[in-house]
């Protein structure tokens, strides 16, 4: 089987990073099965095009951009190949999304072990980035729950990889940024849940130290822990915020929870305060500036969440996990210049100091993140994983329309801070780190990854704007 000439006949697609600050056109192909995919790869090779992959474009920066080259769209391959309600094992094509996973599993009492803050990422994106959730300290990253996967190499051949079948390659493909080949299928273990909801305890923390202490204290008895930081607060309140501790509920603890596994019990509400969800971002836009966001962060910090006499409330899995999906199009509120996310990953030993310095640095420079999210991580087995025994702080910065340099100067300094603290960067979130900084953070692991890359893909068929920026070839 051969594909039509791509340069002459392929559709063009304007692709953006989720932050809306990077954008370009690519040739686009959407194979619907592995035979078509192999034909497209062969055609690309013949035409001298390089190839990257696109899931649902939920990476913030340039990870799924491939300017003027070929972008292969996962959304042609979206079948759930099998799901076993007895074991919670799901075998899925690469375009299956996190949403598809929970819709398939939840009615039978299975929830994905690891989900990001949005339900739209595909198996391809989750695998290539080895994504983490609000339970990373406990459940590890996405890759920990992958049983096996199929990888199509540059020549169109397929390898099945697992912890027993070519384990080194398995550990390089997960978190491999799509640079070793096309992931076409992923088999996953899901997590048994007995209730459709979680018990959530909101905890106000008055400073960054308190936030760290709260996590340290609560980690042993939590299933999920996520911190929100008001990045505008300074002085003694620097790093103040809220922690959400969430726990699964057993059938004994929550007898009614079983009926909430049904899909209709999980949906997101169609409107918030009477405003249709699809319109919400327009109302956010006038507030998406320093003054508006300082106000919103303050209100959020002080406004107690409704809870019962024990200080807890109950939240469905979907609404707890995918809060950001409540407001579709929210990224548009940042306007035409968009925003970037910068997530600092810091080792346990230096995290408290470096995170404080990071928050202070942003305030000094007048580039304050409108949203700060705090998580605990753990190291994992994947070669190029961002995971480490430490902590992360994800920052969302509006790109200043008039003076973007102001932001780039600040992120350069954040990068220096992360390097000095012995931390790492996360390509799913990154748009700004230099090749040198990335190489310093990943060191010898990067050399090993590139050795595998050169051996499997000597012609460098698989590239992306990110791989060219970070010199990953």
């Amino acid at each position, binding site marked *: 089987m051969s594909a039509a000439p791509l*340069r*002459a*006949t392929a559709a*063009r697609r*304007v*692709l953006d990073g989720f932050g809306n600050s990077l954008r370009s*056109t690519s040739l686009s192909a959407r194979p619907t099965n592995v035979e078509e995919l192999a034909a497209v790869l062969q055609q690309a090779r013949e035409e001298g095009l390089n190839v990257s992959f696109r899931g649902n474009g939920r990476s913030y920066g340039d990870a799924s951009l491939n300017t*003027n080259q070929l972008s292969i769209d996962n959304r042609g391959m979206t079948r759930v190949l099998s799901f076993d309600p007895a074991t919670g094992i799901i075998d899925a094509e690469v375009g299956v999304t996190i949403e598809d996973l929970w819709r398939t599993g939840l009615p039978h009492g299975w929830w994905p072990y690891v989900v990001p803050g949005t339900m739209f990422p595909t198996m391809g994106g989750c695998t290539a980035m080895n994504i983490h959730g609000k339970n990373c300290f406990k459940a590890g990253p996405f890759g920990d729950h992958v049983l096996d996967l199929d990888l199509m190499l540059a020549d169109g051949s397929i390898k099945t990889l697992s912890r027993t079948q070519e384990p080194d390659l398995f550990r390089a493909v997960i978190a491999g940024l799509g640079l070793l080949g096309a992931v076409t299928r992923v088999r996953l273990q899901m997590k048994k849940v007995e209730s459709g909801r979680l018990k959530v305890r909101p905890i106000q923390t008055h400073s960054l130290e308190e936030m760290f202490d709260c996590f340290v204290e609560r980690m042993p008895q939590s299933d999920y822990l996520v911190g929100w930081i008001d990045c505008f607060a300074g002085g003694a309140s620097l790093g103040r915020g809220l922690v959400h501790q969430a726990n699964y509920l057993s059938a004994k603890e929550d007898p009614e929870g079983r009926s909430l596994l049904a899909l209709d019990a999980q949906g997101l509400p169609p409107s918030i305060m009477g405003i249709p969800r699809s319109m919400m971002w327009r109302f956010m836009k006038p507030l998406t500036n320093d003054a508006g966001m300082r106000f919103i962060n303050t209100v959020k910090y002080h406004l107690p969440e409704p809870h019962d006499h024990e200080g807890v409330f109950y939240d469905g899995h979907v609404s707890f996990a995918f809060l950001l999906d409540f407001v579709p199009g929210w990224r548009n509120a940042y306007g*035409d210049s968009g925003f970037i996310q910068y997530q600092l990953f810091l080792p346990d030993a230096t995290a408290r100091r470096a995170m404080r310095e990071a928050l202070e640095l942003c305030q000094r420079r007048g580039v304050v993140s409108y949203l700060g999210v705090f998580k605990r991580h753990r190291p994992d087995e994947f070669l190029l994983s961002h995971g480490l025994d430490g902590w992360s702080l994800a920052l969302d910065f509006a790109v200043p329309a008039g003076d973007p340099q102001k932001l780039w100067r600040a992120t350069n300094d954040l990068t220096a801070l992360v390097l000095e603290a012995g931390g790492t960067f996360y390509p799913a979130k990154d748009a700004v780190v230099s090749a040198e900084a990335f190489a310093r953070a990943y060191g010898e692991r990067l050399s090993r990854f590139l050795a595998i890359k050169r051996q499997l893909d000597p012609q460098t068929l698989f590239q992306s704007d990110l791989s060219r920026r970070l010199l990953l070839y």
Partner: protein
Amino acid sequence: MSLRFTRAIIVGASSGIGAELARQLAAEGCDVALVGRRRAELDALAAEIAKHGRKAIVQTHDVTQVDETPLVFERLVEQLGGLDLIIYAAGVIHVPEEGVWDARAEMQQLQVNAVGAIAWTTPAAAMFEAKRAGTILGLSSIAGERGRRNMPGYTASKAALTTWLEALRNRVSRYGVNVVTVKPGFVDTDMTKHLTKKPMMIPVNTAARLILAAARRGDSASVFVPFQWWLVAMVLRHMPSFIFRRLDI
């Protein structure tokens, strides 16, 4: 707003309105890529433009070869070092003789005037959408307002082009892309040489001047050239069919 163009592709630049647009653009400091089938004409124009000190790239290409279009487009953008204006001026006209029915000649006009325009403006629109800037200008015609007995394929092709450009404008103007539909009346060029009735004909340099003024406004519009044709178009559009079919136009 007044846009300044520095890198333009003109498809259908070997004569008439396209050639004059290229001249005037170059005179105001714009590098141009000249596309058409006739090499000699393109070369002569390029030489003239080079005298003004602007870059003029010659590209022979038949717009009905739509599989070549994306590659040619990309190469020209690369040679120009970017793009901020694309003009689609290629066009042919066929006036059938009474009693003669020639499907090939009719279809050829759709291929050149409409299908070729889709082939060229699509990659440009994709690029401009990503850049959040750029101007697409298409030379349609007052002839696209109604189906006329004297030029059925031509009027159908211009109606298609007008609608295509309108759709393009509606698709990309929210991304800051400027799409201009130009509907000239009669302009003194090779195309009109053989026509018998040419009311309100204007010289080609006047036409080009008005067209570029509309493009520079940057407000994504549809304009008649000269604007008086707007009134004619209104009358034509509202004329009941039973009267219109009696007109020998």
